[in-house]
């Protein structure tokens, strides 16, 4: 699992031999698996693939994302989801009754909304609000990170983000597209959570990051909240 991953650049040979299969970001020429983009090479078993380090968000079915409403049509909303194509959220996908003449009452242009990707076609992306925790996000702060760093921010089974949430006493939604929404009981805690997330992003290649973030959070906490962390840990 933790074999060393090396950085490859386009045109570089990842692996050679007929036993390997080309995965994401690679192609096969004769016997060689060749990188088609810049990233970390990972060879697991027979599959050779590239974990991208940069580049925009590629929407996938089922992802939870955070978007910005950019336009209202007669039966839904256009949402900018930080990818090459904008997505469409239909009124049918809202789990409550919406008067079609008053779409702006529910979501207006400029609103931030958490949604799930319900369909990805070649050029169109459909969104849905039919799941728990989705909908318009009010208050709080949003920040934007490289979408390739999202798995690090969430951590293994959500360990990293849970730790940040508990330490800062805030609610955090991480969109797979790199937008993160934070809402805490007070602005100091929101900013602390933001700092912690940016810390994770800047140190994302480090091993044992969860421990480091714990230290970071403890060091940077105001006195009173420090007590809260310790109680929070006992509960687990």
């Amino acid at each position, binding site marked *: 699992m933790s074999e060393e991953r090396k950085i490859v*650049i386009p*045109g570089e040979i990842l692996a050679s031999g007929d036993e390997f299969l080309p995965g994401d970001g690679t192609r096969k020429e004769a016997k060689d698996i060749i990188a088609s983009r810049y990233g970390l090479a990972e060879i697991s078993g027979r599959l050779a693939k590239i974990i991208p380090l*940069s580049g925009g968000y590629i929407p996938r079915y089922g992802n939870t994302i955070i978007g910005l409403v950019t336009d209202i049509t007669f039966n839904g909303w256009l949402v900018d989801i930080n990818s*090459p194509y904008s997505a469409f959220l239909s009124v049918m996908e809202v789990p409550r009754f919406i008067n079609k003449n008053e779409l702006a009452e529910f979501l207006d242009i400029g609103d931030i909304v958490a949604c799930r990707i319900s369909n990805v076609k*070649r050029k169109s992306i459909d969104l849905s609000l039919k799941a728990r925790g989705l909908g318009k996000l009010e208050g709080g702060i949003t920040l934007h990170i*490289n979408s390739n760093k999202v798995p690090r921010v969430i951590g293994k089974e959500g360990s990293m983000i849970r730790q940040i949430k508990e330490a800062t006493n805030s609610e955090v939604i991480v969109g797979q597209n790199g937008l993160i929404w934070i809402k805490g009981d007070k602005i100091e805690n929101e900013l602390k959570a933001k700092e912690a997330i940016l810390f994770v992003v*800047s140190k*994302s290649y480090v091993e044992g990051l969860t421990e480091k973030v714990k230290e970071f959070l403890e060091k940077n906490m105001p006195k009173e909240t420090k007590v809260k962390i310790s109680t929070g840990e006992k509960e687990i």
Partner: protein
Amino acid sequence: MTAKKEESSYVKRSDGRKFDETREMRAEVGVIKNADGSALFAFGDTVAVAAVYGPKHLHPQHLQNPQKGILRCVYDMLSFSVPERKKPGPSRRSQEISKVTEWALSSTLDLQDFPNTVVDIFITIISANASTRVAGINAASMALAHAGVPMKEMVSAVSIGKIDKTLVVDVSKEEEDYEEGESATDIPMAFLSKSGKMSLLQLDGEIRPEELKRALKMGKEACKKIYELQEKALKEKKTEEE
């Protein structure tokens, strides 16, 4: 008479370089924070900075290609990049270089998965001392990779000059202005890193076929060194920051 023809008046390079030696090269990645990908490439005093944005939705719509994404290049020389102030803004020359750069890079790009989109490249020459278009292509190729744009291979470019009868790698301004004998011919060229295919070859001036063949060979050798530097810059970037 034949013996006389072989001799060239340009026997030593003005800056003391070997004939097959480039100026000191510098490559850096991630120089522009707001861009999706960016890079700097320098041949001595010639410094090019490239910024890549996209793939993003393309407007105006009539430029969209429903089969694949397109590439758009803008090459610009800043007014203070040359000793005599250059009038800012696009010119005939900069439009030609933009187009030529676009062609040199588009063959390596693979934008099948992004129909109706555009990848924008902005190449800015912040300091010029000849060979700016090849420095721009080198920077742009690195910036494209850094932005995570799918591409088949890297592009490396170099200019070969024929100064009187001598072939030299990486022409400087002084050499470009050489007027004795057959005077100077500048040949910018670009090669793909893996397949070794050529994606740019320009030439204005006079050259004999066998000399051109030799120039291409020299260019290919020089491009290998440039590619190594590009590779090094891209790989180093990751360990330090991201």
